[in-house]
Each structure stands twice: as C-alpha cells, then as structure tokens.
C-alpha cells in the first residue's frame, strides 16, 4: 500500500496541530494511503515517524508553524510544506495537488 507521512506542529501545541493531523489523516486515508501523522504538541511527540516510515513514504507533508524536533530525519527527502490552516481546510486538495506534482 502506498504510504503518506506528515508532521504537524503549531506554536501552542493545543489546537491547530491536532486539527491539521486529523484532517491530513482523513484525507490520506480517503486518497488510499497508509497514513501516519506525527504531532509535536503540548503532549510531546506522538506517533513519531521513524526513518523507515519516511523512507517508505511516497508523500511527505510538513504542516508546521514552529521548528519541530528531529528535522534531520527528512534530510534529502522531498517534503511538501503547507500552512496549518490550509491542511485543516483543504486536506484533500493538498494531496491531490501533490499527486499531480509528483506525476502520480
């Protein structure tokens, strides 16, 4: 199964991080991806992406408004950066656009 991973983090780590995570999870699943979304919020790092997750992923999304921890995991990878608000409102469209960009 094709795989999508995402990382979400907002300044307070209370609201937008988790809204974006939920939106991207739903959008990823609907588009037929095995989806794993890491959150870095008030509850620390949850659902942490491993190097294996990242290596296996066809699509990698960052929806972050702070500098998250563990950015070195993504070195050399093609990462799509989106606004948190955009991820929350238009998860499906974001994935569609990335697929088009990747020629999928």
């Amino acid at each position, binding site marked *: 199964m094709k795989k999508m991973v995402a990382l979400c983090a907002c*300044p*307070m780590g*209370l*609201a*937008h*991080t*988790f*809204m974006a*995570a*939920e*939106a991207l999870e*739903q959008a990823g699943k609907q588009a037929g991806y095995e989806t794993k979304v890491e*959150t870095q*919020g*008030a*509850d620390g790092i949850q659902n942490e992406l491993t190097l294996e997750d990242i290596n296996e992923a066809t699509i990698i999304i960052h929806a972050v*408004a702070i500098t998250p921890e563990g950015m070195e995991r993504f070195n050399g990878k093609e990462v799509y950066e989106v606004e948190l*608000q955009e991820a*929350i*409102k238009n998860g499906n469209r974001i994935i569609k656009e990335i697929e088009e960009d990747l020629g999928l």
Partner: protein
Amino acid sequence: MKQEIFKIENIHLDLDIKNKAQLLNKIAEKAFEGGVCRNKEQVLKGLNEREAMATTNLGKGICIPHTKNDAIENPSIFIFRLKESIFWNEEEEKINMAISLIMPKQNIENIHIKVLTSLSRKLIYDSFIKELLEGKSRDEIYRLIHQTLQL
C-alpha cells in the same frame, strides 16, 4: 482538589457581544470568575498575543482563542455563543461562537491534554460544529461535549 476541565458553568450562551475585543475580555473575565486563573489581565494579554501570531478563526462560524499562561491554575474549556455574529478579523468569515482553551504553562496533567487534543481533532468535523452552533441549551451542549470527549 482536582478541578474538572469542562463544567456546565463554562458554557455561556446568547451573549450580547459587539466585537472581538469584547469577546476576548469576556473570556478572561469568566476564566477569572470561575477561579481558573489568578489574574484576568494576564489571561487577556495571552489571548491577544496568540491572536497576533495568527487568527484562531476556523471559519464556519467558530473561533478558538487560546492561551498557555502563568496566571492560569486549572486547564479549562469555555464556550461562548453570541446573540449575533461578529467580525473576528476583517476579510474573515464572521463568527458566532468561541471555544476557548485556557491552559497553565506547566504541570498539565496528561489526562487534561488528552481531552484538549481530542476536542481539537473533533473541530474539523462540520457535523460537530453544527451541533455546537445549533445546540438549544447549555445542557444540550454540555452533554454533546461530554459524549464526544468521553469525559
């Protein structure tokens, strides 16, 4: 004694609020009256600082002003619904309801964080928002949130 994160007294309906400043002030006032914080002004300052970073307007009639703040003693969820919609910021959809998350800066119990994060996750679902906007009474909204968050 451990306080509940969400009480029926934290729901305020049919508020006569004319603008964003009044609503943020009302949130800080109710947080203070409810014994959630030591200092109203500091909460108001925190809410304003967060708004200055980026709007908390989610569209669909809801905004989520929130702050993590030294003056706050008990993590709490407040709900404010207005008599009439107001502009939160220019060029944004009007809002009719605020769901406000008020958090201490440190020592937040994990169980409370879980409640807040699961509430945030629910906020992307139009059906949940619609039920909150259309709930007929404090009781109805209280029950809806309790059920949704399995409090």
